[in-house]
């Protein structure tokens, strides 16, 4: 056990959040996670049916506004566009997954279960993208063309090399790329793109084929 999954530096996010949440009421309890009947959304409970298939929005309501969703689509497809091998992230439901993530009704505990913290980072990040698009090109991020989007993303695509003063948007971008990639590569299309060929029952396990051993210099 105790395999902690690799993820972005949560401490960095938390540090930033201290300022972000003071500045913006993004964790607004009144509107957050409420369903049509006005009741608070709930999780799946302590003993869920793990055999059935779940879809985003089924267990708790999705909460992106239309404007946020447009930005989410634009950024997902900037990170994972369609190419010869596989479709774009948004076309296989990744935006719904990210919406499910930021709408999850779980309270953070320390660095765990960061859904609501991520919500603040992402919605703040969307606002920053739109502000930056407006400042540079007079348009929100979703209305920019591919080249225009890149000029912004190039400044924030790596925390270590981000433009001075862009560290917080770079942290947001790292989180959003992780979620986009995680959402995408777990779909059937993304899994196929990586040429993962397991998860099927086999009569025997034969180890690496000769061509694999040759590839790594062991045969």
């Amino acid at each position: 056990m105790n395999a902690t999954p690799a993820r972005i530096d949560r401490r960095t996010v938390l540090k930033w959040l201290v300022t972000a949440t003071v500045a913006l009421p993004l964790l607004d309890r009144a509107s957050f996670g409420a369903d049509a009947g006005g009741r608070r959304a709930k999780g799946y409970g302590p003993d869920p049916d793990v055999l059935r298939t779940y879809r985003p929005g089924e267990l708790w309501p999705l909460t992106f506004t239309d404007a946020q969703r447009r930005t989410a689509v634009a950024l997902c497809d900037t990170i994972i566009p369609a190419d010869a091998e596989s479709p774009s992230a948004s076309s296989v439901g990744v935006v719904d997954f990210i919406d499910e993530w930021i709408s999850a009704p779980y309270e953070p505990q320390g660095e765990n279960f960061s859904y609501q913290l991520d919500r603040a980072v992402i919605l703040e990040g969307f606002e920053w993208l739109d502000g930056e698009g407006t400042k540079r090109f007079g348009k929100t991020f979703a209305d920019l063309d591919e080249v225009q989007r890149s000029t912004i993303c190039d400044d924030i695509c790596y925390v270590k090399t981000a433009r001075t003063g862009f560290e917080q948007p770079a942290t947001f971008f790292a989180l959003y790329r992780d979620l986009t990639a995680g959402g995408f590569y777990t779909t059937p299309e993304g899994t196929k793109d990586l040429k993962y060929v397991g998860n099927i029952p086999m009569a025997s396990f034969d180890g690496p084929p000769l061509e694999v051993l040759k590839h790594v210099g062991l045969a």
Partner: protein
Amino acid sequence: MPLVSPTTLKDSYDVIVVGSGAGGGQAAYTLTLEGAKVLMLEAGVNYDPVTQTPMFQTPHQAPLRGSDTPEMQGGFFDATRGGGWKIKDEPYTTVSDKDGENFEWWRSRMLGGRTNHWGRYSFRNGPYDFKPYTRDGLGFDWPISYSDLAPYYDKVEMLIGVYGTNEGLENTPDSSPDCLLPPPKPRVSDLLIQKAAKAFGIPVVAGHRAVLTQRLDFANLPARLHPGNAFAQRIVREAMEARAACFWATDCGRGCSIKANYQSTTVHLPPALASGNLDILPNAMAREITLGRDGTANGVSFVDKTTGQDRQIKARVVVVAASAMESVRLLLNSRSGQFPQGLGNSSGLLGKYIMDTVGSGVRAQIPRLENVPPHNEDGASGGHMYAPWWLYKEQLAGKLGFARGYHIEFGGGRRMPELYSMAAKEWLTGGSYGKKFKEDARRYYGSFVGFNGRGEMIPNEGSYCELDPVVKDKWGIPALRFHWKFSEHETRQAAHMQKTFGEIVSAMGGRLRHPVKADGADAIQNGGSVIHEVGGAIMGADPAKSVTNKWSQTHDVKNVFLTDGAPFASNADKNPTLTIMALSWRAADRIASEMKKGNL
């Protein structure tokens, strides 16, 4: 499974077993097949892996791509229910939250306990591991030797099914003939690691894990396990026939609906239930072991979590296997005029000398594993190979600066893509996005390896648990408070792990995700985080210096036995579960024979 409800419970049993994991499952198995009437109390929910295991499900089918939540803390597909690092209504406390002094406690609240999700690594303690004080003057000797437990290791391996090989290595015992199943073939990353490690004299051999690489020999094993007991042989044969061999897919940590790996719920409990001698009561949180006028235990009182009502059931013998720390807690809370400091605590050592496994790891990327031709590497899910401790002689000669060893578990390969498979790769990609990111993902997927050191911690005075003076659980049962300290034997060992892994990665031409940590205090994982916590009721020959005797029986109360990790007098680098089961089988044999003689 045929569970009983609180209203249909009998008033008394031969034996009450508290806990349903490796120790409780094994005790119930052995006792019921010997004819004893047993009640098993489980503090968590009922659980049946045959119908509740997500075989082949992908993260895409799960909420949040399977990510962990307070309700499923091991992730949506992990075979943990109602458990995790924090359990609602069931707090524990620590005196320090500083790294190195904190204690992290993973608990489970389900039938089968933590056997449902564990790594299935199954190693025997060696001869040195039972006499560590004699060997180097530190810690405590056990009151038993390897030869006392060897027959039980054989039996457990035959029953649960363990793959591995006999290598004749120092303090790494061989099994008797036909005990082990053939190991799975190495993955390509195993072979690269083996080659690199060889240059440093580190042996990389077949791992030992409780996974059926072929079906059990159900025609012959039952007679070897239960000679002269036709009843047990028939039942065990049927149970073995119901287990399929691994079909090389689905993470073992989810559990296994085809019963190809060991979990108490697929291996120990089905034959115990088939005997007709076992009742299982879930949602039953033991409150205390009750004493009779003669000073022996006469039963267990527990809370029915579904109603909040208390109830007491009588028994001739009480077997406590609630997980080491939870068992200690139950004994500490069983206070009486005779035992004001807790049952079995006349030595004052109950809760003392708790140990975890020393853990430290690295992750690396191996360029030679980039763009490997696609092939199926799921295998037996966990490690196919491992490196046993190899520096016994140098260590004994005092050349290492720390007294006990560690083994290395490692893994890599083209596993099923998960939420974080392509996360945090900027250190390789430079922050790529767009089509370049997709190319990077194809290039780097499957090229990662991870190394985990698993080392022996020496018991010390600063690592113990006691009842918190204030904090109680939902039912008013006092909670545990933990104290934790590592000595330089552990922190130096952790630094040695880091240095070793760095050298292996370098020899593989790999790149470390983070630089190796030269400071062992920085490299070592928190106590409890490896989830190998044992001790607290250590066994010994002297009642003034130990809580239990060589039969895992409390010195103070002859009809109370602890069959989980609590009696461990040391915590060898070998993962504890196999030893828990061997000790439990041995204790249960003793209980059965003493009951037949009228001594219990």
